[in-house]
């Protein structure tokens, strides 16, 4: 059995760690590339959202390399994410690819378990006792690595905005993450974090710089995956902007598990703030996108970049309302709608103009 999983930000690092620790064979799909996207686009409908196409492309490439079991985190209503697996399964079968599919249900309840009954039974045959007994430990290692990745990435967001040589932080971040990737035990991970922080700390920084502060909000896949958003986070950072976002693996996992008080409180704060424009919970990140924008404006941020895939259902509502929020509060919001036709030059131009605008405003109004 060879397990595979889609790419999403640094997810491959900790998914790999889980599989490795539990002694399960795995294949990391090739890094998302133009080919991945082309495959995904070719085999899906044009109005399906970009994350769907990229994930599909990841799966096709992983299956080509010999993976035979796909693990995918499920999601629930009301957004389309919850039905990705239904359609992707049919597409992959139609392409004549053979695989087993395992959905990790977003909530552990009876209907979800019943739907997954066959998959689970099938899987049990493949796993050895050792795989199963070490699995909790593997999950713990995976969690630790995930938290470590996020810690380094968050540090990089601060460093990048102040770097003297453009692009240096990104290189050092990749180096730090590669070091983390190699760590096998809990203690090794701790060491890798310290080492990683040292590597990032070695980047020459202009300490006197007062970077612009911009929050990235929007649909979680688009916000979290640099391949999908064409490196918006990095681009902004390298233009000297300190980027903040609330979409992280940890925050979404904690939320779906219903734990983490701090995390829940923050989300609730955003939700409440959104209510003056949107009288109901639309689902997914829609309310948070709006609420966060309102609160970031009050917190003195310079602007918000709102990311969404083309034809995304919840965020379409958000983009219409954000237009108004931006006008009411006099707060800059740049909405980027991403699809496969978007060329990177246009995104860069828009981001550059946005940053120029923020600088201009700052000089003028402050």
């Amino acid at each position: 059995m060879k397990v595979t999983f889609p790419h999403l930000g640094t997810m491959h690092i900790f998914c790999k760690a889980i599989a490795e620790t539990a002694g399960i064979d795995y294949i990391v799909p090739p890094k998302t590339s133009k080919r991945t996207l082309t495959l995904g686009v070719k085999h899906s409908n044009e109005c399906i959202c970009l994350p769907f196409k990229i994930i599909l492309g990841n799966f096709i490439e992983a299956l080509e390399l010999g993976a035979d079991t796909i693990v995918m985190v499920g999601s629930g209503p009301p957004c389309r994410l919850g039905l990705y697996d239904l359609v992707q399964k049919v597409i992959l079968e139609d392409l004549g690819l053979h695989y087993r599919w395992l959905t990790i249900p977003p909530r552990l309840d009876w209907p979800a378990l019943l739907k997954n009954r066959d998959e689970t039974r099938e899987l049990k045959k493949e796993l050895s006792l050792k795989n199963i007994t070490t699995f909790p430990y593997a999950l713990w290692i995976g969690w630790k690595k995930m938290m470590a990745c996020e810690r380094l990435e968050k540090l990089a967001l601060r460093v990048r905005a102040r770097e003297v040589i453009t692009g240096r932080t990104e290189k050092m971040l990749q180096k730090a993450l590669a070091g983390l990737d190699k760590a096998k035990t809990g203690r090794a991970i701790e060491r890798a974090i310290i080492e990683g922080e040292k590597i990032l700390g070695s980047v020459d920084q202009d300490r006197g710089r007062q970077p612009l502060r911009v929050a990235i909000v929007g649909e979680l896949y688009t916000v979290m995956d640099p391949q999908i958003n064409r490196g918006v986070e990095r681009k902004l950072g390298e233009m000297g902007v300190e980027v903040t976002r609330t979409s992280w693996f940890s925050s979404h996992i904690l939320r779906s598990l219903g734990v983490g008080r701090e995390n829940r409180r923050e989300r609730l704060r955003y939700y409440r703030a959104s209510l003056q424009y949107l009288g109901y919970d639309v689902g997914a990140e829609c309310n948070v996108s709006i609420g966060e924008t309102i609160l970031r404006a009050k917190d003195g941020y310079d602007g918000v970049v709102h990311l969404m895939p083309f034809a995304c259902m919840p965020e379409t509502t958000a983009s219409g309302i954000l237009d108004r929020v931006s006008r009411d509060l006099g707060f800059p919001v740049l909405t980027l709608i991403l699809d496969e036709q978007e060329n990177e030059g246009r995104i860069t131009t828009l981001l550059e103009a946005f940053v120029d605008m923020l600088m201009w405003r700052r000089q003028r109004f402050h």
Partner: protein
Amino acid sequence: MYLGIDVGSITTKVVLTDAEDRVIAHAYLRNGGKPIAAIQQGIKNIIQQAGNPISIEGVGATGSARHLAAYLVGADVVKNEITAHAVAVIDYMPDVKTIIEIGGQDSKIIILREHVVVDFAMNTVCAAGTGSFLDQQAARLGISIEDFGGRALRSHNRVRIAGRCTVFAETDMIHKQQLGYQTEDIIAGLCDSLVKNYLNNVSRGKEILAPVVFQGGVAANKGIRQALERELGLEIIVPPHFDLMGAIGAAKLARRARPSETLFKGLEVANWHFSTRSFECDGCGNTCDVMELIAKGETVACWGDTCGKYSDAFNRSRDEGQDAVRSNHG
């Protein structure tokens, strides 16, 4: 004196300005698929027009091919075209609240309040609402784009042409021709159609307040000007150098940057022989087209690779070379 270069998708604009941002010489050329040659020709035209000896103190590049221009001539400021357009207008008309720019394949709206850009937007990949829409339809009607605007003004009964998209507009236009409408009326209809496309695709409900400045190549078209005024119910102002505003903005930015020593390679670049070499990298699934710019048998720039494999190597060797030169001098 300052040089501003705006390389768009269809045309290249070059201006020479003095220390007070006055335009001394300018050139407006069609790229015809050869932006490098267009930039060089533009500089040649400028040298000719200026007559007197020119000493360049700074260079600004803008437009969608701004990086190419910067590699080619050596620019002190490389700026996106949205900022460049705004910068150019703000001194011409400090109270401007809306800038409408319609170019060959790009169109933009820039909203300003109290002399500060507060919002902007650019068209998506779709060409509806840009100049190439008009080019195509004019070609189909068999009239030159220069006559287009004048003939639109002669229409007394504008035809409504459905078309949120060039393809659909074309279909509908043929349909209207077959129904026997006057060419003038169809032209006026096409102008309305472009303006509606622009308002739908680009401005999207943004608050358009007077004074409105209209610039970009399409601003030459009287039919579009009239259609815009009708649709907005506002008077629109077309600045004297409406088609050069991006380049003027770039020159202005170069002046403001006040480079102690310009990176400009000199006016002789206009006569250098440049060539490009491209190859498809097969290092990963991205299959990037890596471009190299070659002058005098030497690679002077390298770009296009997402991962930085080639461009980083090039930059490193160039930097080392410069260090070597520097240490030789020292």
